[in-house]
């Protein structure tokens, strides 16, 4: 009888514990759905008022209540893409250094240092960028960019140290640790026998890396890059400090611009009118949808790679 009771209480305990675990696992799905629903509901006024025009209108006039998202979307995407262009070669270099080149005693400390770079809060990057990097850029770098590369329209603008290019540069430094750590993990999954066959026929280290390792890990690297892109798109504080917050679209990368996250950070608490607030929330919704798609894609690519990699 006593044994039977104990068995029963075990069953209740099991059901309870599993139930609680299941509840919190489901809460992630509910949370995700709730974010979409709440953002959609709050931006409904703006969606109804501006319709699709919101996506391609360049208006941003809080006084007359006319809003368009194009400058912010443009700034978000362009700054992130430039950041990727800067960060990709450097990240791959770091990953190659850590997997193929560094002596064992150096791998640990350098790997840790790169990871510490990822753990610095983004507001510190922003502040450092504004007070240290921006004056340096405006004094020593941007005038030369304009002098020597100014014949290309994108390398023009005001040498203030604040603008699209400085923001993208800080973003690049911030996403290098993410891309390089994913790339490092993927490089490690290349079967040694493939690399050894390369060395066996007399290939140099670089030939093995460029003709065996990189082709083998291609889809994983693309995944890592898209993951970095997802990070860069949503990054707020560093961009807010450096991008200059101008709702004008300029092809010159040294000019100030804005991004979705910077617009939100700067204007959200000042928005009193319903339509202003609703437009800002719609910007947030657009950002969320873009990053959701980009990160989902990255995840699928990285997963697919690690699956075939194990086979």
């Amino acid at each position, binding site marked *: 009888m006593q044994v039977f009771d104990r068995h029963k209480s075990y069953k209740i*305990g099991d059901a309870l*514990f599993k139930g609680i675990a299941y509840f919190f*696992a489901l809460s*992630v799905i509910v949370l995700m759905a709730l*974010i979409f629903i709440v953002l959609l509901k709050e931006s409904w006024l703006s969606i109804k008022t501006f319709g699709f025009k919101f996506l391609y209108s360049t208006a941003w006039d809080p006084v007359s209540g006319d809003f368009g998202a194009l400058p912010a979307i443009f700034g978000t995407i362009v700054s992130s893409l430039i950041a990727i262009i800067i960060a990709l*070669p*450097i990240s791959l270099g770091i990953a190659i250094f850590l997997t193929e080149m560094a002596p064992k005693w150096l791998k640990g400390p350098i790997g840790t240092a*790169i990871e510490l770079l990822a753990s*610095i809060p983004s507001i510190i990057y922003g502040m450092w960028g504004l007070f240290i990097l921006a004056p340096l850029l405006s004094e020593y770098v941007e005038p030369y960019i304009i002098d020597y590369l100014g014949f290309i329209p994108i390398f023009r603008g005001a040498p203030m140290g604040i603008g699209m290019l400085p923001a993208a540069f800080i973003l690049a430094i911030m996403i290098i640790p993410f891309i390089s750590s994913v790339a490092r993990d993927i490089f490690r999954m290349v079967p040694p026998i493939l690399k050894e066959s390369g060395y066996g026929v007399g290939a140099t280290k670089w030939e093995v890396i460029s003709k065996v390792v990189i082709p083998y890990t291609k889809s994983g690297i693309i995944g890592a890059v898209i993951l970095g892109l997802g990070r860069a798109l*949503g990054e707020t504080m560093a961009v807010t400090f450096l991008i200059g917050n101008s709702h004008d679209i300029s092809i010159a990368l040294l000019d100030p611009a804005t991004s979705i996250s910077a617009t939100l950070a700067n204007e959200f608490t000042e928005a009193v009118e319903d339509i202003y607030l609703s437009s800002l929330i719609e910007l947030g919704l657009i950002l969320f949808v873009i990053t959701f798609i980009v990160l989902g894609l990255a995840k699928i690519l990285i997963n697919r790679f690690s699956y075939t990699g194990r086979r």
Partner: protein
Amino acid sequence: MDLHYIKRKAINLLALAASLLSAVFGIVFLFWILKDVLTLGMPAINASFFTELPTPAGVEGGGLANAILGTLMITVIATAIGVPAGIMAGTYLSEYGRKSRVASVVRFLADILVSAPSIVIGVFVYALLVKPFGGFSAIAGSVALSIIMLPVVIRTAEEMLKLVPDSTREAALALGAPHWMVTVKVVYRGAIRGITTGVMLAVARVSGETAPLLFTSFNNSFWNFKLTEPTATLTVTIFNYALGPYEEWHQMAWGAAFLITALVLFVTLISRVIVRGKA
């Protein structure tokens, strides 16, 4: 033929040098940023920094005691919400769901949520907890941070629980222990080190977050002990002070930057040491 060989060697050296330079690039920026935060932040750190309230603009002295307390308070509450929820969800993924469809959906969404823009989480919590309840509050800030923490804790908990070999579970089950007791007394015990590390990293990460706090806990120039009132935090203070026009504000902001960076790096390094001790 010799020329071909020399060319290949040269390209090899060049590529390897470029890769070395990339590593140097990363490390240079790490130390450059740390050096500036240290040298500019240290002068602001003194006794009154930790004990006094901020002074009005232009007045010398004062401190950020309320912001330090606010950051502590909001982070502790966020941890109290996010960590148990995350560990339970991780337990489901590792002990029950495993390869089920629900588990893979949860994993996928958690991975997206890890990198989701934190400012959007701030907007979401604003719409959920600030607007309907009529004001910025510490609790809204805590909820926003706990949402950012949740997916990190879930994924680490799952990874760490998975490292416990199934034979250990089976041995305990064979003794007649119920599943939940096996999980709590055997599996958790085996994974406690890894989970603690993951939790520490997650706490460190959210304590440096700014974007989700801008429209949730907002800011406050005075002491606040109520969860329903706007509350100052170190990170939001940095944001406001750094963009402000006064030299004293910038000085304070560097002090706050130093404090938060030192805290985050310290926790990150400690948890790395713990992980290495295990391996």
